[in-house]
């Protein structure tokens, strides 16, 4: 039995307490959303995910999607759940009210996303992609397209896809072949075949809107010749309702390791009518608006699944009786102690817990910046927030999913053999989480993005948005005895990050392969320091709250304990990352290709 109850107390901590001094807060745009109102939204989301989505997670996984005559059917219960989801207004939490959205801050939206993914990540893909697509349409499409499509998408009666991948082109979109031919009426005819299209065909909405990357006839070769098109499954009739069937069809759905309830489709475009979104040959820019937003959301998927795994593992570790505590029996009244008494089980549980709280805290910071990037009044704050989001997007994507996957494996490990069988639902988390490290740009690509595009850009300006707050925090906190060795631990890790940053920047200038060789380790290193910063800051706030005699002392005490665990047992990995980076590419590239 899978269990999940949204960690509302920690979410409220991240939302209201942790980041208040980060310079991104106090946005006038959100002044109507009082903390009480936001808390109520979170509570309602927690209830919905627990009651409606969680029960369909295991059953949906067991049943999977099926395709019959080109129609794709989602597992039992998904349609009803989606209808309730839409009716509850969850589709459009953070969308622009101008198109029917609720205009909530991203800080709340990301927490709700986490809940949805924890309860049923496969379900999350159906509305999730729609959210990304609305971002691209809002940012780049003509007013005509916006008016015709955004209200329906925001309301959730229609859904959307991102059609990038083709058989011969995954990471390297320059190889893309799908073609778009201009028509006399200003539309385009699209021809080609796409694979791995999440929610490309399903039975949840009355129409599906595809955002398709394709080449115009005179387009330059490579990524500079790609344009973005919008092509619906049904062409809207004059009243705006789904009309004639468009020339896009689902040829097949993939048989996957996990996320079986999410339809991954092969789509054929045959003289499909579509419209250009944004400028000709600038499709990558438009797509990246969507992709960057999606990358953060995929990171949140990793975190959500990891939280579900944590809760499952904790429940089992308190319940399962095996052996006795090494320090002497803790429950002599029982035939054995619950396994949570064992240090190594503790290690696993604490690790998952620390990952989850660290990621949630960092994610909350990035979400605040996403809000400030859009809505801050001060252009300097806006620019600073944009820098921070640009820097942290690959970190959130890769770090959260790497750690999320590790967390789900630890969850299985806590269960022992019972984790490996299907009954408890723990192995599903492993299978579901695995894809998050791959799609929306593999985690290797995230590392490349970080060292190649983010680290050196504008002489390191993006880095400043992160390094300066950490540096200032360390300087201000170095005499804070209440935090014990935590500040010193963070300082050491930060020093390793500074050195590694200089090393990567310097070597990468002369030899791009050196940067490429450092990407993954560097991303982990900055991620560890970012989580460490969030933890030490959390611990400082918790210490202050305890000193003030706060009501929920247990929460704050647990926060300090978790922070201490992170600093003791996880943050030291920063040194190892630094050493690996320092070693450079040599041994990585030395082996002759034939020797593999």
């Amino acid at each position, binding site marked *: 039995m899978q269990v999940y109850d949204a960690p509302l107390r920690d979410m409220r901590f991240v939302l209201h307490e942790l980041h208040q001094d980060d310079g991104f807060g106090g946005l006038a745009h959100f002044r109507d959303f009082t903390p009480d109102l936001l808390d109520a939204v979170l509570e309602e989301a927690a209830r919905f995910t627990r009651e409606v989505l969680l029960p369909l997670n295991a059953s949906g996984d067991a049943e999977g999607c099926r395709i019959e005559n080109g129609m794709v059917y989602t597992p039992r219960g998904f349609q009803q759940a989606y209808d309730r989801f839409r009716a509850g207004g969850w589709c459009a939490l953070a969308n622009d009210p101008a198109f029917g959205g609720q205009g909530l801050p991203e800080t709340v939206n990301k927490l709700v996303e986490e809940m949805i993914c924890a309860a049923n990540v496969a379900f999350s893909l159906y509305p999730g992609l729609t959210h990304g697509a609305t971002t691209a349409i809002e940012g780049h499409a003509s007013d005509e397209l916006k008016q015709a499509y955004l209200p329906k998408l925001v309301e959730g009666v229609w859904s959307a896809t991102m059609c990038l991948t083709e058989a011969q082109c995954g990471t390297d979109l320059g190889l893309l072949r799908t073609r778009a031919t201009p028509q006399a009426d200003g539309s385009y005819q699209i021809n080609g075949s796409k694979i791995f299209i999440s929610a490309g065909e399903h039975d949840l909405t009355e129409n599906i809107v595809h955002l398709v990357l394709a080449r115009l006839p005179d387009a330059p070769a490579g990524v500079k010749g790609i344009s973005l098109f919008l092509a619906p499954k049904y062409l809207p009739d004059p009243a705006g309702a789904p009309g004639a069937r468009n020339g896009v069809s689902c040829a097949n759905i993939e048989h996957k390791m996990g996320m079986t309830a999410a339809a991954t489709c092969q789509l054929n475009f045959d003289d499909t009518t579509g419209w250009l979104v944004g400028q000709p040959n600038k499709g990558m820019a438009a797509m990246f608006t969507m992709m960057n937003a999606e990358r953060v959301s995929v990171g949140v998927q990793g975190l959500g699944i990891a939280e579900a795994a944590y809760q499952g593992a904790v429940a089992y570790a308190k319940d399962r009786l095996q052996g006795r505590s090494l320090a002497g029996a803790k429950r002599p009244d029982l035939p054995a102690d619950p396994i949570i008494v064992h240090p190594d089980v503790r290690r696993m549980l604490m690790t998952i817990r620390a990952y989850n709280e660290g990621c949630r805290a960092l994610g909350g910071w990035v979400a605040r910046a996403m809000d400030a990037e859009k809505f801050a009044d001060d252009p300097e704050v806006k620019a600073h927030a944009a820098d921070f989001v640009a820097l942290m997007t690959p970190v959130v994507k890769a770090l959260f999913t790497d750690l999320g996957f590790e967390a789900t494996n630890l969850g299985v490990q806590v269960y022992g053999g019972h984790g490996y069988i299907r009954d408890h639902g723990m192995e599903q988390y492993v299978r579901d989480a695995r894809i998050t490290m791959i799609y929306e740009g593999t985690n290797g690509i995230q590392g490349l993005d970080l060292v190649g595009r983010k680290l050196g850009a*504008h*002489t*390191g*300006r993006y*880095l*400043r948005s992160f*390094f*300066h707050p*950490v*540096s200032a925090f360390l300087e201000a906190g170095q005499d804070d005895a209440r935090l014990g060795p935590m500040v010193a631990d963070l300082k050491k890790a930060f020093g390793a990050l*500074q050195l590694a*940053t*200089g090393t990567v*920047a310097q070597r990468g200038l002369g030899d791009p392969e050196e940067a490429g060789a450092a990407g993954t380790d560097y991303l982990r290193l900055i991620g560890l320091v970012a989580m460490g910063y969030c933890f030490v800051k959390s611990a400082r706030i918790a210490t202050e709250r305890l000193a003030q005699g706060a009501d929920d002392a247990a929460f704050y005490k647990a926060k300090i304990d978790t922070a201490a665990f992170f600093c003791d047992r996880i943050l030291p990995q920063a040194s190892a990352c630094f050493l690996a980076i320092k070693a450079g590419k040599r041994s990585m590239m030395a082996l002759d290709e034939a020797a593999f």
Partner: protein
Amino acid sequence: MADAPIRKVCVIGAGVMGAGIAAQVANAGVPALLLDVVRDPDHRNAVAEGAVAKMLKTEPAPFMSEQAARLVEVGNIEDHLDRAADCDWIIEAVSERLDVKRSLYARLDVMRRPGVAISSNTSTIPLHQLIEGRSDAFAADFLITHFFNPPRHMRLLEVVVGPKTRADIAAKVEAFADRMLGKTVVRAKDSPGFIANRIGTYWLQLGINAALDLGLTVEEADAIAGRPMGVPKTGIFGLIDLVGLDLMPHIQASLQSTLPPTDAFHQTVRKIPLIERMIAGGYTGRKGKGGFYRLDSSRQREAIDLVSGDYRPLIPAAGPSGPAAKGDIAALIRSPDRAGQYAWAVLGPVLAYAAALVPEAADDIVAIDDAMKLGYNWAYGPFELIDKIGAAPLVARLEQQGLAVAPLLMLAGQRSFYRVEDGRRQYLGLDGGYHDVVRPDGVLRLEDVKRATQPLLKTGSAALWDIGDGVVCLEFTGKMNALDGEVMALIGKAIPLIQQSYKALVLYNDGPNFSAGANLGLALFAINIAAWSEIGKLVAEGQAAYKALKYAPFPVVGAPSGMALGGACEILLHADAIQAHAESYIGLVECGVGLIPGWGGCGETIDRWVKSGRLPKGPMPAAAKVFEIVSTATVSRSAAHARELMILRDGDAITMNRDRLLLDAKAKALSLVDGYQPPQAPQFHLPGDSGHTALAMAADSFHKRGLATDYDLVVAGALAQVLTGGAADLVDPVSEADMLALERDAFAARVRDPRTIARIEHMLETGKPLRN
């Protein structure tokens, strides 16, 4: 007579060229007499006077200093031609009309002293036509000296001698032009347009034609025929704007009338209605209402549409892509896109043309390459460009298109026009053999040393070379010759080596700029990652390295040319002497990016002013003077101006010819070797708190008048703190070490200020200071 030195020069014709030449003579410290016609009977010298007055307001300034301006004496050719007879060289720079020139020569022929050199600055008229009808004696003293505009800054001087010109007269003029006027003399034959303008005019015409034929915008054309070819970014159309559209038809007509009918030039000449309309409408370029480019009423840049003839907002062109964008010229002309087509359409014919001009216009290829590099600021001469493409592939493509192939190109065959043999650069001669490229006496280029030897020491950003006679040269090698920890490391290693095995050190490099100072990019990156201790370390290391140079037991001579800013100025301030190229732009510019000089510049500058004897006694005047100069980030406009700023002291010297700088600096260093004693460490008597208050008040008044921003005031305050000795008590002298500590503290505080960071970032991203 021919042995007598040139003590005074007469320039006749006070147009832009004549006046500029007179100014450059004066810049060399030699009196100049500038004559022109009488236009106003009441103000008979008005034309020449007006020319001098105009030059005092011109940017870039023709005069290097105010003293130089006072060396120009004005007059008119009706009343004062006799004074020309007192001069040792008469330069004619009147309008390009043969009759005008001939009648002037006739008058000069009567009153001149035999043996006085007479030269014409003509750009188009052949020498044999100029001296027609003149006596043999006149012809013996006559030559053409063709300067380029502006005469102060363009280093090329084309010299043409006739069959009767006396060798010693030519040699005297050439030596003066070289050593005093700083020119590189290139001997040209008496053929139309000489070298640079003949090739340059052909090139510009090709550039216009090809842009029209291929349908390129002016921006696109200039983005191809500019930087990617090693040509200034003005490219084709920007350059025509600079020289003036109206000048083009003149030069063209002249070349058309004088070049043989077989010359390829004739095929390029076209009537271009747009250009004719532009000239007629006063759109003659930068000096007129605008040219191919202009600024609109709100100072936004616009360009002309070559088809419609209308101005429209500038559309920045991307230029070539791939290796072609990075200076691979072979790849550029090979590329099948429009950039490649345009590049070939311009470069192919012009290289073929240049190859046909030896020996018609010049004796060897070196003269042709020098002329284009120094007269048109090309990074590579035509033959150096051919070597990048390969003579054989060039010939193949020319033949394929039915274009004429000069014998010289065939002679080269599979060989290159230049090669390096035993560390010596050699060029391909008309005899088919290679010959050494010989530098004139007294010219030493570091590149020659580097070709022939290995560095004594080397780090990532600097190298140490043995330049002979016990003197070593420290060269900066980083991007823009920027200074960083690697430079300081080299200084640290160099000092014991020199002490042990050499006599003296020269700080010099061949680049157009000595150094723009500390590596700001590196600093900004360190700032961005909050590496405060690293930044502090770099400041301290720089201070230590510079002081070690100052107190080293051997003489150190700084030899700047071009920019020497910030940290580069500071290293010069620590040298025993400076031998500066006349075109040296030196200054402590740190305040401009929100910093203060941190490598000892504050103390060294105060010490210079205290010891200058130019200021009243007491602790305040020097601090105030330095504050005035440094807080405004003043940069010298020339080496002469640097002397006024006390960057150059008595005993420091100026070299007019860039090519002679290294050898002059070496000689200066050797002159200091005997009995060399390192300087004594100064003790500073500084005004302390009260002085600080006074300087702050001065800055405040600037601020109140809107001349300084809020943050300028903060930076000036930090500078004042250092210059007045911090909390120094008037009675206690401040040591050099104290001054360095004050610099470090002030620097560390400023570098963390977001407003300083914004300034540095803006400077790096835009190249311009941010006034925040």
